[in-house]
């Protein structure tokens, strides 16, 4: 990795301040590296050089005139292709949105650019963010830069790979059932899902509206905290965004962990957990204890039902959200004799296999005669899972779990059995259902050199505590366990 493309946010800022490099030169270096690495990794689907250089020139002009720079000035950023950027192709990894260019910017993009970040382009993902391996993209899978024969995780695989490979300093992903945290774990970098309602979703193309969240991938926890401070906050354009005040996330970093109670749910260390992942996460918990945390054994008895509840709720909401892709207003159309035939052909031929599977499942669980047995039941079980978290947070300050039960697997290894793929989401869907924040931080590597992730959950709007723990863990050598 050439020096500049390996920088963190403070390193970018220091280099710009010292005039060691201009923002324009920095962008050029990143595009050169993307040209070199992207043909293999397939992390980016579209680049936005015009917009990037225009923003870089603005930063350079501010530097030249001695203006105070905003917190993300000159920081190269990648944006998952489910987030709208005006005039830049936005496909959601789907053929059905081929050629679509949004007429407006998502609030997160506006906020980050206002803070000085430079959007380099749009990153690959599972189609409509449905998947755990990035193999469901209509534009081909992303390769994991740590081990290119393996998946980067999903659905935000392109964002994880871009940051891990030095093709961006930070990236935005989205998380509905683990789609930020699991690729963060697989690519060996910190990746955070904020609380539900913490970050505006205006301009995010919806998958499951009661679950979807936007959050950062970064090289360090501090960088993730810096990005979070820009992302978080009330947006009048998103009625689900919260007015809860936004603390300075970086301010809590470095505080002592002494006396913090970390909950270890026995229910998460059960059947299906890879033995090497278990050993690393156990060592990670040991490291947190050394840093002064007190380990508390807790029960989260409804964990075993989370995947079933999640796949009912997420697919039901998806079947409704994806009804808008009908070949009329945007994207692709396949002609048909009647309006209905046109809908059916467009949707049947332009959606990929996983999206169609989920639309069929979601429509089924919502259909007459099955609504109570599946959808309503799923929502009731969701209440119980949220209660597990509420009760746990009466006893502990944070909950520690593995991020994924398995290390990154080989491309093509798991595509034949969708249920098996769904079951591996067990540790991440729980927090998605409950609405709480969670981060994945690197926690050593397997004997084959594959990254393991440790997940830290906090109570709703407890991002500060989650980041404080993750930062201390990282600084104590968590990645080298």
């Amino acid at each position, binding site marked *: 990795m050439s020096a500049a493309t390996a920088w963190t946010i403070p390193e970018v800022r220091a280099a710009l301040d010292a005039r060691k490099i201009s923002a324009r030169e920095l962008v050029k270096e990143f595009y050169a590296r993307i040209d070199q690495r992207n043909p293999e990794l397939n992390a980016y689907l579209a680049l936005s050089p015009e917009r990037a250089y225009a923003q870089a020139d603005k930063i350079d002009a501010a530097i030249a005139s001695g203006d105070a720079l905003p917190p993300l000035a000159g920081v190269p950023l990648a944006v998952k292709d489910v987030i709208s950027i005006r005039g830049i192709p936005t496909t959601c990894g789907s053929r059905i949105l081929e050629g679509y260019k949004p007429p407006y910017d998502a609030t997160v993009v506006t906020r980050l650019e206002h803070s000085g970040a430079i959007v380099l382009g749009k990153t690959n993902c599972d189609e409509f963010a449905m998947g755990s391996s990035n193999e469901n993209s209509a534009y081909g899978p992303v390769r994991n830069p740590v081990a290119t024969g393996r998946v980067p995780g999903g659905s935000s695989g392109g964002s994880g790979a871009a940051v891990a490979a030095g093709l961006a300093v930070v990236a935005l992903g989205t998380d509905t059932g683990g789609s930020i945290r699991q690729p963060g774990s697989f690519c060996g970098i910190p990746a955070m899902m904020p609380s539900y*309602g913490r970050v505006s979703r205006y301009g995010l193309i919806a998958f499951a509206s009661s679950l979807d969240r936007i959050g950062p991938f970064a090289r360090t926890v501090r960088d993730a905290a810096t990005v979070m401070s820009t992302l978080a906050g009330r947006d009048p354009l998103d009625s689900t965004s919260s*007015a809860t005040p936004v603390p300075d996330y970086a301010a809590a970093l470095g505080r002592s962990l002494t006396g913090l109670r970390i909950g270890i749910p026995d229910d998460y260390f059960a059947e299906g957990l890879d033995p090497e992942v278990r050993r690393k996460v156990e060592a990670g918990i040991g490291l947190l204890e050394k840093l002064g945390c007190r380990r508390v054994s807790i029960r989260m008895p409804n964990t075993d039902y989370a995947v079933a509840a999640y*796949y009912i709720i997420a697919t039901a909401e998806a079947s409704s959200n994806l009804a808008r892709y009908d070949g009329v*207003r945007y994207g692709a159309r396949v002609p048909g004799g009647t309006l209905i035939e046109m809908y059916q052909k467009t949707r049947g031929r332009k959606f990929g296999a996983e999206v*169609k599977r989920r639309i069929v499942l979601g*429509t089924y669980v919502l*259909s007459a005669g099955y609504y109570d047995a599946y959808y309503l039941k799923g*929502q*009731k079980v969701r209440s119980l899972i949220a209660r597990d978290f509420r009760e746990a947070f009466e006893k502990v300050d944070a909950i520690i779990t593995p991020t994924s039960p398995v290390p990154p697997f080989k491309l093509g290894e798991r595509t034949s059995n969708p249920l098996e793929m769904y079951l591996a989401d067990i540790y991440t869907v729980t927090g998605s259902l409950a609405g709480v924040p969670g981060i994945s931080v690197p926690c050593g590597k397997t004997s084959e050199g594959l990254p393991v992730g440790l997940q830290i959950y906090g109570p709703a*709007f407890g991002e500060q505590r989650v980041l404080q723990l993750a930062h201390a863990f990282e600084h104590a050598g968590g990645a080298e366990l």
Partner: protein
Amino acid sequence: MKISREDVLKVAALANLELTDAEVETYRGQLDDILTYIEKLNEIDTSNIEPMTQVVAASTDDSTLRDDVVVRSDVITEVLRGAPDPAPLYFRVPRVIEK
């Protein structure tokens, strides 16, 4: 067997989704596995549990609805440019009303 070929076809029609015969068969089998797995939810008694329809924001002072004020967005041309078959100021679709 929880789900039949006819069930899949019925649901696909509800969702306006054209499926090939091979897809119908593949999805039938896979959905059968998934629905059988989901059955495990019946192990839990939820008779006194309220359904959770959304995550309630932690803050109670949210004014979740903004004022209803008309704002010009002026995006009609741009929006229509993205449509597969635009006609000036409209989206064109196959005929739905008989002469």
